[in-house]
């Protein structure tokens, strides 16, 4: 049972799975940046009462699963998403799907993912991949962060599908229900919806931990870390922040560059010059995030140890917050003119 499948490598797993599956099902226009933008993937949140690997819980993107869901909904493609209690049923459902000649996406944990290098195997349960076929006991996997196909035995796949802990996937399986062509008109409208939602999420979420205010909140926290946590702990915290930002498969500058690329591609559908200007602002924001990461690395390498160094990093984040606020404000006004 080997379905004809074109592997797509992407910067981020969920974008990749979304773009790859939709392309397979006839949406030839979709690209990774479009999937990310239509799914309003850009976000920022610092959850103060939660810990991840003993470090701060910070995310630069929206909740796992939402990019796929929103993109499909915007394009009017119905999807199926299943969770399982029984491992047996989970395997059966996947096998049936493959037997009918169709691929399916799975949410998995990376800790026991056999083809990942050990250094990257943490208990992170929101990785996404596509299962495209089965030969004997081996499943053929199209993992968007890999350059080519990978394989897993049925036991290995079962173990990652039933990884436990935060965001446990519970064997989750999802795919578009049917192949469907999408018109350029639909893409145009989806882009508008995506931008509007993203503006809302970055600017108008109440509270001070999400969106632009979340970045400012983090900046203030960082300035206090040296005093409240001590040198060792704050080094670990900063390293964690950089890892979340530059998380494998976001390729530098985190998601800001992908969003800037999305705005450029949106321009092809909505030829409004200001979109290109805002795209440049996001490129700039991505660059600033990278500068902040370099500053952080000076601290966690032990080269920078003074309070002043933490202040610099905090101020860098404040500058980013101001820039992104401006960019989203502009986007908010532009989007009203898009038809």
């Amino acid at each position: 049972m080997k379905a004809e499948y074109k592997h797509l490598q992407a910067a981020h797993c969920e974008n990749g799975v979304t773009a790859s599956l939709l392309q397979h099902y006839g949406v030839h226009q979709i690209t990774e940046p479009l999937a990310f933008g239509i799914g309003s993937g850009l976000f920022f949140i610092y959850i103060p009462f939660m810990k991840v690997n003993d470090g701060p819980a910070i995310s630069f993107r929206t909740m796992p699963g939402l990019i796929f869901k929103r993109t499909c909904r915007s394009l009017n493609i119905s999807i199926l998403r299943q969770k399982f209690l029984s491992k047996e049923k989970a395997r059966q459902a996947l096998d049936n799907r493959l037997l009918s000649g169709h691929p399916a996406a799975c949410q998995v944990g990376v800790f026991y993912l056999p083809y990942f290098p050990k250094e990257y195997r943490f208990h992170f349960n929101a990785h996404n991949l596509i299962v495209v076929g089965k030969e004997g006991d081996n499943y053929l996997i199209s993992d968007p962060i890999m350059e080519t196909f990978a394989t897993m035995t049925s036991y290995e796949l079962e173990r990652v599908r039933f990884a436990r802990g935060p965001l446990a996937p519970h064997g989750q399986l999802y795919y578009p229900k049917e192949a469907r062509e999408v018109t350029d008109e639909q893409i145009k409208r989806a882009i508008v919806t995506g931008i509007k939602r993203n503006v809302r999420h970055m600017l108008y979420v109440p509270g001070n931990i999400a969106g632009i205010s979340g970045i400012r909140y983090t900046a203030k926290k960082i300035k206090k870390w040296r005093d409240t946590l001590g040198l060792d702990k704050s080094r670990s915290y900063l390293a964690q922040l950089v890892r979340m930002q530059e998380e494998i498969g976001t390729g530098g500058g985190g998601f800001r560059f992908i969003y800037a690329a999305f705005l450029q591609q949106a321009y092809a559908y909505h030829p409004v010059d200001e979109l290109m200007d805002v795209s440049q602002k996001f490129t700039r924001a991505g660059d600033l995030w990278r500068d902040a990461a370099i500053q952080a690395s000076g601290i966690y390498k032990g080269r920078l140890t003074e309070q002043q160094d933490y202040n610099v990093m905090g101020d860098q984040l404040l500058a980013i917050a101001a820039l992104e606020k401006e960019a989203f404000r502009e986007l908010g006004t532009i989007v009203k003119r898009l038809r």
Partner: protein
Amino acid sequence: MKQEDIPQDPGALQNFTKEVSYAVDKDGKYVTELSTGWEVKIKALDVAWNDIEKKVADARQKVLNNEASPLLYFMELKLMNIDILSAYTGFWKWQVKRHLKPRIFEKLSDQKLQRYATAFDVTVEDLKNRHWHESGV
């Protein structure tokens, strides 16, 4: 980021994959290119692993001093915490905490130990065998 600034530093990704990076070319248009890694990021990962190694070493010492059961060592070695371990084994958190005490651990049945062994991907023998600290399991 400009295309020519895409970092190409050697790191853990070597011989595994390269990652897609988005950057602008000289006309200001976004393109993708593969990157082998970025030193800043690699160092961040190193920091995380140093922290883990320290925790594993602490756990090992505690077990050797008979302050904790070998489960603590394996829990740290597999980057777990009580929440994750409880989720993998199906024990309640308070039970896991109890099992981390050496005296309670001694009395655990093989059946229960097997649940831990499966979660850690080791054998029951490994859990009971006190020589893991020499062999470096």
